[in-house]
Each structure stands twice: as C-alpha cells, then as structure tokens.
C-alpha cells in the first residue's frame, strides 16, 4: 500500500467491506444557502461513479466534499459525516494533506504547472520525499505510461507542459495526480474542454484506471456518464434524487425527476 495508507491506516478487512467513500445525512451550507440536503451515498471501490444533474444541483459541491476542497470557501459549514475508508474525514484531528493525497482531483480545465512535463509529474513524489533521480525518473515514466503519454512524450520530457495540446495537458494532470499514489480520483468535468475524439480517448483511459482506482466523475454530459460509469447519481437542487447502477438509471429510472432529466424534458 502507498504512503497514503500509512497516514491513516484502515484495517485490511475494513477496506474490503466498506465503500471507498460514504456520505451520511450530509448537508452543506454556503452561509445560509443549503447546497446539499441530507445526502446519503456510498461510492464503491474500483468502479466509476458518475454524478449528473443540471447546473447548480450540487454535484460539484458533493465531489469537493470528498477531499474537503470546500474548506477553501469562506462560510462553508457541513452537517452529517463523510467517511473515506470508513473514517470520518471531518473529524477534528483529520490530516488534510494525507486526505488530499489519497483522494486527488482533476479539474475541468487542464492545469499543469508552468514547468516541464518531467517536473510536473516529479513534483509530487519529490515533495513527498522521493530524492534520487533514478527513482523520480522511474516514477515519471510509470505515471506517464499509466495515462498513455509516455510514447508521445518520452523524447520531450523537458518541454513546457503548457505547450502541449489540451488532451495531453489533461493526461499530464492525471499523471501528476497518480504520481502521489492516490486511491480515489475525483474528476470535475474532465473532458468539457476537449473535442469528441480526445474525450473518447480519455474515457478509454478511465476504463483502464478503474482497475486500480476508485473514480468519481461529475459531468454535464449525460451520455458520458452513461458510457463510462457503473454507478450513477442524479442530483437536483441539492438532493441526491436517485443513485444506483448506471444501467438501471438510464433504462428504467425510479424517480420521475430522473426520467425527465435524462430524457431532456428539463435541465
């Protein structure tokens, strides 16, 4: 297991039996505005879970709860609990750095550091104490391979990351994230700035990554949610209206509001 586990080691049997992430009666307030309402959800391990819903429904807020990114927003308050590997991440003594290392995030716009390809991927391992060049080189190669970038970039590791096309930048951001050995990848509209071909390639990459990682993806693109996920949740006005197997949600949703949304009747 990675260094992430040593920061907050769960018992082995707990990891097998418990969901990767669990929210219980979770409400989140931005000041007096209640952005999440009593959300209960269990994110299964090593599957792709998608959150869909119209703008402002709370899906990105819920995603950011999972690694406490909302802490950065002034006036945020939560009720209920959020468990990662069975442990409450909002408990007073929770280690935020360890949490964000274990539960990493990829954003809508690729945001590589304005340094070289190599340095982007080596950055995480280096600040977490990986010192030798040989180790860093190995880490860079492994994580560029994991996102399908190695063959394209192995001879251009010193070029500025910002000179890459958008899809490669997004893959690089994923490589950078994988280099700190997370368990969970949170993705907030990771393909929304990419063209359809690049999107399809990233989706195929997700299928590869789910063998080793738990992935939660927020997307406006319902078709993408349907294609890539095995679990899906529909959110509306802060409620998690429906959550379950993607096949069921897209062929026979239980809630009329889900049906209306996925058939394009509103949203």
């Amino acid at each position, binding site marked *: 297991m990675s260094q992430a586990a040593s920061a907050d080691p769960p018992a082995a049997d707990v990891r097998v039996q418990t969901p990767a992430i669990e929210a219980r009666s979770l409400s989140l307030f931005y000041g007096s505005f209640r952005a999440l309402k009593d959300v209960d959800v269990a994110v299964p391990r090593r599957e792709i879970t998608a959150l869909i819903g119209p703008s402002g429904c709370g899906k990105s807020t819920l995603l950011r709860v999972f690694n406490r990114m909302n802490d950065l927003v002034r006036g945020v308050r939560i009720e209920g609990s959020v468990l990662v590997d069975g442990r409450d991440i909002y408990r007073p003594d929770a280690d935020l750095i360890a949490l964000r290392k274990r539960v990493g995030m990829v954003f809508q716009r690729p945001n590589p550091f304005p340094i070289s390809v190599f340095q982007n991927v080596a950055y995480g391992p280096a600040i977490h104490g990986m010192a030798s060049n040989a180790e860093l080189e190995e880490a860079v190669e492994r994580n560029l391979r994991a996102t399908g970038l190695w063959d394209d970039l192995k001879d251009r590791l010193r070029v500025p990351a910002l000179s890459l096309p958008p899809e490669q930048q997004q893959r690089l951001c994923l490589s950078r994230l994988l280099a700190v050995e997370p368990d969970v990848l949170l993705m907030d509209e990771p393909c929304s700035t990419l063209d359809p071909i690049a999107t*399809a*390639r990233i*989706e*195929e990459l997700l*299928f590869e990554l789910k063998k080793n990682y738990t992935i939660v993806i927020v997307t406006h693109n319902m*078709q993408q949610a*349907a*294609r*890539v996920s095995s679990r899906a949740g529909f959110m509306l006005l802060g409620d998690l209206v429906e959550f379950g197997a*993607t*096949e069921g949600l*897209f*062929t026979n949703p239980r809630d009329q509001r889900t049906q209306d949304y996925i058939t394009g009747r509103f949203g």
Partner: protein
Amino acid sequence: MRRHLETAEDELKERLLVMGGLAEEMIRAAVEGLRDRKEAPLRTVHENEETVNRLHIEVDDRCLKLIALHQPTAADLRLILAASKINSDLERIGDQAVNIAENAAVLLGQPPLERKLLDLPRMADLAKAMLKDSLVAFVRKDVELARSVIARDDAEDRLKSEAFHELMQIMQSDASTIQRALGLILIARNLERIADHATNVAEDVIFMVLGRDIRHRAEGSPQGS
C-alpha cells in the same frame, strides 16, 4: 484505440452465435428423432429451448443497455438493431424446432408411411445450412454470403410445395394416412419457416453492412437502392 463499445458488441455477437448454434442443434436433433424414430433426441430439443429462451432475454437486455448507455450511431446502431432482430428470429427458429419435435413425437407412436419422410431431411439440411451461413455472414459482415442465403430460400419453398403436393396425394389415396401425412405437412411447414427466419437474418446482415433495407422488394429495384 479499441473502444469499450466494440468489446460489448463482440460479446453481443458471441451470444447470438451461441444461440444460433443451439438453434441449429435443435433442428438437427428434432429431425434425427423423426428420421431414426427415437425419443431421446427429441428430449434434447426441449432442453435446449430453455437455454435459447434465456439467451433471448439476455440478448434483448444487452441491446437495450447498449442503446441506452452508448447512444450508438451509424454502423454501431445498425449492428445493435440487427442483433435485436436476429435475436427474435433465432428464438422463433427454436420454437419451430420444438414444433417439429412435438409433431415427431406424435408420429413415433404410429407406423411410418410407405414413402417415409419424402424430402423432409433434405429440407432440414437446407434450412440448417441457411441458418449457419446467415450467422457466419453476420459475424464476417459478408454481404455475398447473406445474398446466397436469401437466394436459397426459393429452393426450400419449392421443396415444401412438392412435399405438400405429395402428401395430399397420399391422403387422397388412403384415408388412414391422414393423421400421419398432416403431421409431416406441419413439419414441412416448420422447416420452411426456419428457412424464412434465416432469410430474415441474412436481410438484416445486408442492412447492417450496407445500410440498405432490402425486405419486401427485389434488391436491385429503385426502391431497394
């Protein structure tokens, strides 16, 4: 890049091939029971029918989910629509084989006709070959093979008409043969229907590959082009 959808499509094709193989075996066993006057092969027909029915539901479910989850277009969409229709045809071929087995079971309790089974075994061989080739055409996207299946349907129709004619004559000349001859007429009809279903499969293959619907018209006519 191999798409996730293509893997799912390959699995779909594989299930249809399994179903087709079972349907072919059901025809073979039903006709074997009839020809050799044995009950054991007839029982296997019923056993295989349960599996075919289960696959029928499974394939429909796969098609439904592929459409709902992948929103297929163009060749992907045509493949999944074709698979759904082929699925129905294979299930009905299975039903026809069961009908043959049931009629055969009744005939086993009676002495054979003097003319035995006429050309029915030949009809069965022709129908089985049409079924097999239609599925090979489906998997290989082989339009020429699909066309050859369609062309063979006339021969099956002709054999059925001849069998009907001969069996009518037998009944007219000896009323004691009526029940047995009627049984054989029904079986000839079942075999001819199997060939029709194989023809439907072949037509679906042509639609899948070329995007051209050739049903209910001559393929070369202006409407068909």
